[in-house]
Structures are given as structure tokens and as C-alpha cells.
């Protein structure tokens, strides 16, 4: 496994940095959500705070997505890792990026207000795993037995 790619510590450092970024993105949220009162108009300061936070979320989302794409691309383009490892890393980075985009662009989070959407997405993920996983297992098994 000692290919021309970077050493293990360097790789680990890279994953650590990525994880940190993601953690930052997920932790950006209101310090204390204002009590939901249907009639009260939020104050100017609250609107301004919301505004800043939203802008920051988009910015972080874009930055993270960019970084993750570049990383995956570089892994393959400059052959930083052996194909099997690189493949796993590329898929992993892709998955992380999907999560980042869901959080920052599609505004799905684990707070109460997004529960309906979140549950829907989690259920869909279950079905996707069943369908895609099942299809791959069955058809690769068939291929192995028939080829």
C-alpha cells in the first residue's frame, strides 16, 4: 500500500481538516433562537443577525463544496493514492459534500423545525440503500456465477 501518494500522517491530517470544516459548517446556527411568537415582528438587530448568519452559511457551504471537489479531483488527477484507496476516498468526499450541500444550501438540519423534511430524507435514504444495495448484490452475484 506504499504508493506514490502522500504518507499516512499527511492523509490523516487532511481528513482531520475536512472533518473540522464540516463541524464548523454544522455548528453555524443561531446562538439562541428567538422564541417563536407569531405576532411579534423581529427587531432590526435580529434581522441583521439572521442575515449575517445566512450569508455565512452560504459562504461556508460554497467554500467547503469547492474544497471537497478540488480535493477529490486532485486525488485522482495527480494520483495521490492507489486506485482502490482513491476510489474509497472519492466516494467518501462526495458523500461529505452531499451532506454539506444539504446543510448549507438546502437548509436541512437536525433541529425540530426541519423534522418533516429530515424524516422524509432519512426514509428516502433507507429506500435508496435497500434498492441500490440490493440491486448491486444480486446482479454482481449473478455476474460472478454466470461469467
Amino acid at each position: 500500500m506504499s504508493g506514490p501518494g502522500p504518507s499516512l500522517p499527511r492523509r490523516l491530517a487532511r481528513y482531520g481538516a475536512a472533518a473540522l470544516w464540516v463541524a464548523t459548517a454544522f455548528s453555524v446556527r443561531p446562538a439562541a433562537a428567538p422564541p417563536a411568537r407569531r405576532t411579534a415582528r423581529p427587531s432590526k438587530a435580529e434581522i441583521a443577525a439572521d442575515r449575517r448568519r445566512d450569508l455565512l452559511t452560504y459562504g461556508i457551504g460554497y467554500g467547503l463544496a469547492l474544497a471537497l471537489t478540488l480535493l477529490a479531483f486532485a486525488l485522482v488527477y495527480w494520483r495521490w493514492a492507489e486506485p482502490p484507496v482513491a476510489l474509497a476516498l472519492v466516494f467518501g468526499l462526495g458523500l461529505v459534500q452531499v451532506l454539506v450541500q444539504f446543510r448549507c444550501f438546502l437548509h436541512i438540519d437536525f433541529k425540530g423545525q426541519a423534522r418533516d423534511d429530515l424524516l422524509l430524507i432519512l426514509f428516502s435514504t433507507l429506500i435508496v440503500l435497500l434498492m441500490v444495495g440490493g440491486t448491486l448484490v444480486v446482479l454482481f452475484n449473478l455476474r460472478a456465477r454466470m461469467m
Partner: protein
Amino acid sequence: MTGSEIWTTLLGRFEWSDLPFVRAWEKGTLSEAIGAGAGGVVVVGAVLLVALLTYKRWWKPLWSDWLTSLDHKKIGIMYIVLAFVMLSRALIEAVLMRTQQAVAIGAPGLVGPNHFAQLFSTHGSIMVFFMAMPFLTGLINYVVPLQIGARDVAFPLLNSISLMLTAGGAGLMMVSLAIGEFSTGGWSGYPPYTEAAYQPGVGPDYWIWAITLSSIGSTLVGMNIAVTIFKKRCPGLKLMRMPLFCWTSLCTSILMIFAMPPLTVATLMLALDRYLGYHFFTNDLGGNMMIYIDLFWLFGHPEVYILILPAFGVYSEVISAFSSKELYGYVSLVIATMAIAVLSFTVWLHHFFTMGQSADINAVFGIATMTIGIPTGVKVYDWIWTMFRGEVRLTPPMLFSLAFIVTFVLGGFTGILLAMPPVDFVVHNTVFLVAHFHNMLIPGLLYGMIAGYQYWFPKAFGFRLNERWGTVSFVCWVSGFYLAFMPLYVLGLAGLARRTQEILEPDFRPWLLVALLGAFLLLAGLATLFVQLYVSVRQRDQHRVPVGDPWGARSLEWSVAAPPPEYNFATIPHVGRRDPWHWRKANGGAYKPADHYRDIAMPRNSMVGPVVGLSGAVCAFGLVWHIWWMAAFGLAVLWAAVIARSFVRRTKRVIGAREVEATDRAWLATAAAQQVHPRELETTSANAGLAELHA
């Protein structure tokens, strides 16, 4: 341009010999004559229908009261009418197939092999996509908004579009009788047999596009119902307070959302193979037909539960109402329904145990399959306990429910047998399988739909259906089922392959004759349903139930007039517990005017639904016949209609508070003037829809 080029441009690959009438004239065989006869029935039927509409001046009411209506109740009724029309065709085909097998023992029989193959293909496709799906969708559409205290579904226009797309697909199926031919590849359309190499004609294309239209319609309707149930429930109606029919509808609609895409993907890939020379499922160049089989059953298995769950909901409502008891084991029924919905995504491989995957994989899916029997068993016990010590009345819906319990359990046993891969290898592709799935779907779907139709009919039209004819029909449906399908178990074990056009074993004759008798009884069951409808309409004045609660039932749909006003509820109800209507009746809260009436905004009619359905069908027809201008035109109109609609801003119509109040008070006055009827008299003209209260 030569003449033939002009012909091809304008009419694609159509030729005169594609008309069954021309074929019958040229060949003169009995098989072709039967085909021409069926095509003739379609043409003559269409002409007569147009004539009738014109003569009675019904075009305008048909258009403005029905086709363009966005009222969920009318859309539901239209779905069910469509289902009955298609049921009639597919049942006649079934009788023809049974006749063929009964007479073609060492003889050619009535229809040739190609014709016979078209018969079983259309029979299966219609029964699943154009009978069962519209029927259950219609019931859900009619009942669910009323049960959850809503004025309409979440997306009324989408509802109309879904209906019309399904109707467009059904229209395509009917057209295939009169122009061209249908696929001979069965309802599942397995490639490579349905590829262009083996069936270059229009048959599989009719199948592909009819199915695609209907599956898109079903996906959309699934979304609509799920969102309706999640977002449109009246105040206080928590999920765990919903009637069980709402639960099964919710699970069915979730299954539609997630299980229809595999079908769409599979059929569109087959279309790519046939139209653009792709190699998904071909024999050569890396094609792999097993992908299709996998995709098809990823859809096909959940589809079974899409079909069965709404019927489970109907039985829960019917058994509770006609036992005058609350549903036993509500929570366990809800959990069982959800368990079935999720498990249904984990068993698809049992439809192709013999495809060649390893024994381990087969074992896993076999065990998963048997697991589904557990929640289903829970339900059966719950229904039985609901009847226990109840005041059970054997009305037609209740009779169908009882027949369902016995028959369905029997079918479940044969299902457990088939779930064992070694057994499945033995009876695979025999009529044993045919008997099994009819044994599941006739009680598990059709009886439920008929029971639901009889149960809610008085709500929709304001008068009861004749119970005597309902009972006659019940006897026909049940005895017909047993006579038609029990022999098939025997024949399947004896090795009779399914879809056989000519029988070579004379010993099968008695069994096949019994099955034929059963098929005729089933047809009589349908005929008596129509007689029942006719008789009931004639006698409607003696059977009116204007107050709206003929069975003394417990959920909200019975708390309004029969038929309900367009907006369902004069004021949106508030719910504090399960069975809210029963609670209100018991606590003196029923039939009371509201404190306060408000204006109600309801959706205006829209012609977008019919336009989308028609242009979708036109586009599909163009694709089938390679008439490219027609396909492009249909698609363009479809998109133009959708985009144009997004510019319409006046989509709502307001019904004034005064009108609402007047209607409501008139209904309350009717209720006050009526006598309460006791349970024993609910099938007599004493029943005006004001039921006696009972524990």
C-alpha cells in the same frame, strides 16, 4: 417526396393491415374475427357514447361539472368509474382465456397463440394498472379528505392531472384494440422477448407508454395523498387519532412515491432499447435482461402492498362499523401497516428465485418474505376480535370482509409455500402461481374495493345500494373465485405451465371446465353489481339517507350530509380523540349549528387536467406509431398547458358565509325532521341516515 414518404411522415408505420377489421377480412379466421369483434365493440361503444352525450346535451355538464372539476370527491368518483369500465374489459378477457383453455385440449380452440398472448398481457396490465390502481386511488381520493376533516387534497390541480394521465393510459389500452395490436409479453413485459429483435411491432410500445402514463399519474397521486395526510389534517387530529383507512392510504401513497420510479426507469430503459438501439436488456453487446427483472420487481413487490393496504383499511372501517364496536388493537394495526410497508421493499427477489443467484441470497429473501406474514397475521386477529361480541350485521360490505378473511388466509398459506425457494423451483411458472396471486389479489384487493364501494356509496350519492342484489353479487364473486382458482392449484402442482394456449393433457379437462364455470360466475358477479346499481338508482327515493350516517359509523366522513357539500365541512372540525364522530354523537355534540360561519375559498375548475391527459395520450400514440410530429405536438401542448397555468392567478372561488350557513341549516333541519333508525332496520327504507347510537 414520394407517396410512401408522405405516408410515413404523416402516419408513421401504420398500415391498413394494422386494423383488426382488415385483418379479419383478409384472413377470415375465428381468432381474427374475435379480435375484430373486440375492436368493433370499442369503436361502436365510442360512437354510441358520443351520440348519447350529444342527444342528451350532456357535453357541457360533463365538461364543467366533472372533467374540469378539481373537487376531490368528483375526481374520486371518476377514478372508480374508470376502474369499472376497465374491470369489465379485463374480466371478459379472463373469461375468454378460460374458455380457450377449456376447449383447446388437443385442439386449437378459439384464439391463436399470438391472440392468446395479447389477452393475458392486456388482462394483467389492465387489472393492475387500470382497474386496481384507479379503484383504490378513487376510494382514497373520495374518503381521505373527509376523514381527516379537510376541504380538499393538498394539490387539487395535480389530482386532476393524475386522474387524466391515468385515463389517457387507459384510453391507449382501448385504442390498441381497434388500431394495431398489443404486446404479447405479459403484464411484466420481460425483455429480451419485448425487445425490438423479437417484437418489432407496436405491441410492446403500446404497453410501455400506457404503463408510463399510468405510473407517472400514480406517482403524482401518491405525493398528493401523502402531503394531504401530513399537512391537511384538521386541528387536534394527531396521526395516532386517524381512522385506519387513512393510515393504510398513507402507507400506500408512500409506497407509490418510492416504488413507482423503478417501474418508470425500467419501462423507459426498455423504450430506449427499442427506439434508440440502446443495450440495456438485449442479448448482445453487454445487455443484461436480469437488470430489468430486478428493477421491475423493485416496483412489483411494493405494488402488491400498494394494492392490498387500502383494502385492509376498508375492512378495518367496515368491520368496525358493522360490528358497532371500536376497532380492536388500533395501535397494533397501525404498526403492522407500517411494518408491511417497509418490509415490502425487502422481498422483491422472491419473484425471481430461479434467476440464478446463489442459494444464500435466495434464503435471505425467502425468510424476509415469510416475515411479512407476521404483521398480516396480527391484522387478521385484530379484525376477528373487533367482531367478537359486537352487534354484527351481515350487510354486503361485511360479507365481503368475512369472505376476505377466510380466503386471504388461504392465499397466505400458499404464499408461505412459495416463499420457500425449493418449493418455488418446483411450481415456478405454473398455474399454481397464477392461483396464488389471484388468491391474494381478489380477496385482498377486489373484495375490499367492492366492500368500500358499497359502504361509502350512500355517502357519495345520498342513497343506499340495494342489499339484496349486493348479496347475490357476493355469492357470485365468492363461489366464482373458489371454482375458478382452486382447480388451478391442482393443475399447477400437476405441472400445467401458465399462459398456455393449447393444453396437451386430456386429464386436465374436468379441472379446466370447473375453472371455466368459476370464470362465468365471476362475470355474473360483475353483472349483478351493475344490476344492483341500476335497481338502486331506480329505487333511490326509497333508499335516501340525506342525514348522512346510514351505518352509525364513527369517523368524520359520516358527520356531514350525504352527498356532502363541495367544501365538505361548513366549519372545520376540531378533534380530541379517536373516533371523533362517535364521541360527538355520544356526548350530544352532533347535528349542531356552528357558532360562526365563514367564507370558504375553493379551487376553481381548470381545463389543465384534461388537456394534459389528452395531450399525454396523443404524444404516447405518436410514439407508438412513430408519428413524430404527433408526439412532438402532444408534448408541446402538455408543457404549454402547464406553463400557462402557472400564470393564472385567479385560481380560487369564494363561497359566501351566508350560503354556507343556509346549506348547513337546511341539512340540520332535515336531520331534526328524521326518525332515528334502529340497527335492525338499517337495510330498510326506515334508514334516513340518522343511526341509533350504540355503545
